């Protein structure tokens, strides 16, 4: 029984060879795609559990591929890229990627990230509230349904986990490191830019005014805090 099906998208054949040999050695099933277009074609047919996506490819490129993948599914996507500036990381996360690994990487690091991503995507509800109800925001943690301002809101798995953790600690500031380790896994902690991107996404979806957040507050230099939305004033 395989540990999961992984789609490796990279235009470099040698990298695909290494990844295939290594990942198969660790019990994963591997399918390959040479370009973003190729990956988008194979995804619906193969239904991989995770996508390893090169950022710099001919054709539509990694970011665009990631955005397209996101439109149709919640498959975890890990971007692999030779660039290591914060701007590139934020762009990848903004495009919907779950994680970002800089090339070259050691295989142990990549395997840890893959495990974390797979664990997340099928995460069973941990100890925490079963639901949260207020006039402006309703969250059902068991059916994973979120309603904000009267309409259904679709959160990606990571956005959902982030919200769940913040709600479970409502009213208390949660540090960057704590939040990263709770949602991404124990190997994380120094990626505050991940939080910036994902918190912004959640705010856009549930805050009445995302630019002036009232539900998820920023605690300068510390982290974030969930505050139950107040009753709307008559």
């Amino acid at each position, binding site marked *: 029984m395989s540990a999961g099906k992984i789609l490796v998208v990279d235009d470099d054949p040698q990298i695909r060879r*290494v990844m295939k040999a290594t990942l198969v*050695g660790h019990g994963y099933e591997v399918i390959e795609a040479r370009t973003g277009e190729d990956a988008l074609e194979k995804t619906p047919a193969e239904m991989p559990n995770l996508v390893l996506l090169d950022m710099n490819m001919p054709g539509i490129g990694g970011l665009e591929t990631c955005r397209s993948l996101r439109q149709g599914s919640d498959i975890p996507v890990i971007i692999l890229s*030779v660039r290591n500036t*914060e*701007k590139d990381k934020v762009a990848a996360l903004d495009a919907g990627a779950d994680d970002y690994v800089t090339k*070259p990487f050691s*295989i142990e690091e990549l395997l840890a990230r893959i495990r974390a991503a797979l664990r997340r995507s099928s995460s069973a509800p941990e100890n925490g509230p079963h639901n949260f109800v207020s006039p402006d925001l309703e969250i059902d943690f068991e059916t994973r349904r979120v309603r904000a301002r009267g309409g259904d809101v679709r959160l990606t798995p990571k956005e959902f986990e982030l919200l769940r953790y913040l709600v479970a600690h409502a009213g208390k500031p949660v540090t960057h490191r704590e939040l990263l380790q709770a949602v991404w896994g124990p190997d994380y902690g120094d990626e505050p830019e991940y939080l910036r991107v994902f918190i912004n996404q959640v705010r856009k979806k549930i805050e009445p005014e995302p630019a002036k957040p009232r539900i998820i507050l920023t605690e300068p230099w510390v982290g974030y805090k969930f505050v139950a939305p107040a009753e709307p004033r008559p």
Partner: protein
Amino acid sequence: MKYQRVWRYSASIGLVGAVLVLYRSFLHVNNTTVALTLLLVILGVSARWGLAEATVASVIAVLGFNYNFLEPVGKFTIEDPQNWVAFLAFLVTAVTASQLSAHARRRTAEAEVRRLEIEKLYSLLQAMTLTGNARRTVREFVHRVVQIFGCGAAAFYYSPTGDIVRSGPESGPVTDHELVAASEIEEPVPDPRQIAFTSPVRLGGRTLGSMALLAPLPGEGTLRALVNLVAITLEKARALEDASHAEAAHQSEVLKSALLDSLAHDIKTPLTSIKAAVTSLLGGAPGAERELLTIINEEADRLNLLSAEVIAMARVDAGKLHLEKQLVRVGDLIASALSELAVALKKRPVTVAADQDLPPVEADPELMQQVVKHCIENAIKYSPDESPIAISATLKGEKIVIGIGDRGPGIEENERLRIFDRFFRGRKHRFDTKGTGMGLAIAKGIVEAHGERIWVESERGQGSTFSFSLPLAGGRS
């Protein structure tokens, strides 16, 4: 020309004579009618030809009128005092009328000349098509001004490039030296001989050069307009030129940056395969093989670092580091550099003495973090293992100075400046293999791209402190 004048005088006199003969011999009317007819003729002459002709006609008419019609007829004397009054009235009227009419004629002629000059100015303006090239505009001007205004010659000194351009059949009495001198004065030099017009060309106090025209010259107002016209056209061309230079520089910067990016990609891609493969093998390798695989792994890391630094160095060398300046807290810069170096700093006591209330600085956070990192790496490399590293951040006037101090052997005085040269290593460390020898050179490039300074203070046996300054965010803190 001369013939025409003679003809005009003869015709004026002839006309007056014809009127006198007509009334004397054929039509017998009273003297008033004769005088009025003569006045009409004089007015006609002055309107058609001018004051001189009209004056001659007036004199002939007065004499003829007196001789033929005023008592006693046939003599140039006047007996009746009434006739004296009539005669004088006629004389004054004839002269005044012809003067007025000639004046109006002159005005018309002047207006016509002005209209022509304005037309010429306009066609010059059209001819000096906006080329976006100041030199070409100067050449065009010098060529066209001779063609359109019919000047003997034209010369232009364009001071930003020092070019002198001349045109016209004779290169003229205005020398290069005089032209250059003219660009430094305030007003055009009056030339009593009216042979040449020399004027500085400036716009809004900015000197663009000077110009000279040789006779025949257009009117003074037109000359002033010419100077202004060429100044404005030149300034426009120069602005266009600057804009296209900036655009070209930007294009080349984009190209360089794209080349470096693709180079980085091409080097790192095979390294990625090597690193992934070797770390995969390392997992289950037995002792002896493990040692060899570890070497491959470490060397792959070293190649990766080397390629990153070579590319960073190339960016610095291109002289156009792309700075994305933001408000940054130096505490954050130091903290993120320390967290990136956490492994290398494991056994080092690190103290950070940064004031909590330091105002933010304006810098590119990623690049500045590299500077802090390079300085700390340098401290790690050149001081004994487990010796402390002291980092400080202090406010000094309009700057914040970050210092990274080690307890190494210190740097010899003659090496302190060269330490920021690439590939330079201190005499004692020349054969160490650690590092690429580019870290401090890159740090210096980044700091200088921000318009700031990096320096080292060192004491033999006590250690060294690398410091660099950062500008406070102006007025926004």
